[in-house]
């Protein structure tokens, strides 16, 4: 129970924290967007839970997928807007969308454990440990980006592109899950090399949307999002 909670918390928090660390490196002169995002996310996570049951039952039980697709697409669009120059509003949108995804999943996980015999204490301990480990990784990530930025600014563009590519692959995976896109055969199976069960697999999944058995649609969307953001980054650098 304790280990499961730690793993779930790390897995859900990492995408938000890695995005946050990258945005902080990108916009270290202003922090207004951070407070705005925190406020908006808090409001959404207070307003949304009572409607969660109704949302999940929408569209033949695919409502939650549509909500998650919207969040991933919002993040991807926000990254495009960010590179087009509107950094403050884009950062708020990206962070809120990712925090919403994380918040809903943690809320649902919390519902399974809080109040049940023998598990409440383990749950809270696991949650604290998960938040602690996730925050530690984010701090290390922030410092690592700062060091790499000294070598080349391109690193930040690469990180944004990887985060964007994750949104692309997650979107098409969810569309496949609700039968809006075809699911093809896996192009390869790299689970022997890096399994999605392992810590490295979880980290890679949170960082750039790692899939051990991707199909053509998933790979295509990943590459397209990655290349588009990288091209926008280069365009922005040329413009500046």
């Amino acid at each position, binding site marked *: 129970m304790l280990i499961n909670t730690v793993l779930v918390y790390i897995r859900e928090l990492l995408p938000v924290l890695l995005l946050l660390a990258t945005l902080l490196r990108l916009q270290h002169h202003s922090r207004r967007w951070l407070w705005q995002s925190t406020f908006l996310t808090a409001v959404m996570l207070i307003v949304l839970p009572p409607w969660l049951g109704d949302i*999940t039952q929408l569209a033949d039980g695919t409502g939650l*997928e549509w909500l998650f697709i919207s969040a991933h697409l919002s993040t991807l669009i926000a990254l495009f807007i960010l590179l087009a120059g509107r950094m403050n509003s884009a950062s708020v949108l990206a962070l809120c969308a990712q925090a919403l995804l994380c918040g809903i999943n943690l809320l649902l996980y919390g519902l399974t454990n809080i109040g*049940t015999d023998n598990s409440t204490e383990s749950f809270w301990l696991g949650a604290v440990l998960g938040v602690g480990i996730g925050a530690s990784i984010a701090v290390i990530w922030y410092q690592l980006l700062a060091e790499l930025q000294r070598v080349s600014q391109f690193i930040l563009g690469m990180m944004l592109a990887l985060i964007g590519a994750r949104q692309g692959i997650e979107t098409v995976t969810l569309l496949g899950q609700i039968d809006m896109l075809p*699911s093809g055969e896996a192009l390869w199976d790299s689970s022997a090399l890096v399994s999605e*069960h392992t810590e490295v697999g979880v980290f890679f999944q949170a960082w750039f949307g790692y899939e*051990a058995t991707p199909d053509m649609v998933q790979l295509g969307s990943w590459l397209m999002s990655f290349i588009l953001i990288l091209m926008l980054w280069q365009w922005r650098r040329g413009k500046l």
Partner: protein
Amino acid sequence: MTLLYRSFILCCALMSCNVFSRQEFVLVIKDHLFSPSHLYVPQGQKIKIRLLNQDATPEEFESFALNREKVVLGQSEAVLYLGPLQAGEYGFFGDFHPDSAKGTLIVLPENEWIQRQVEHVD
């Protein structure tokens, strides 16, 4: 404009046929266990799995092999679309109770699937 409208209606109709023509299977979650724990499905076909969560708490159907992750709230149901799949075994588990909620989706080749259907009719 009319042509565009008709094309849109046709696309919607084809998508609907695609969704509704799938063979449906039921997977029940009760006491944090999947039932059946071994679900047999045919190879090379698109299928629909109806997840019925009879527990009071939510569960998340997760499968790395199938690239699927689906939350089902307590005392409710959800639908999962899969396939076409190659013959083989695909593990899945309940992400919120991974120690107890475990199962395997067994995809059978066409001849074995037909044989299994005949045995069950007999």
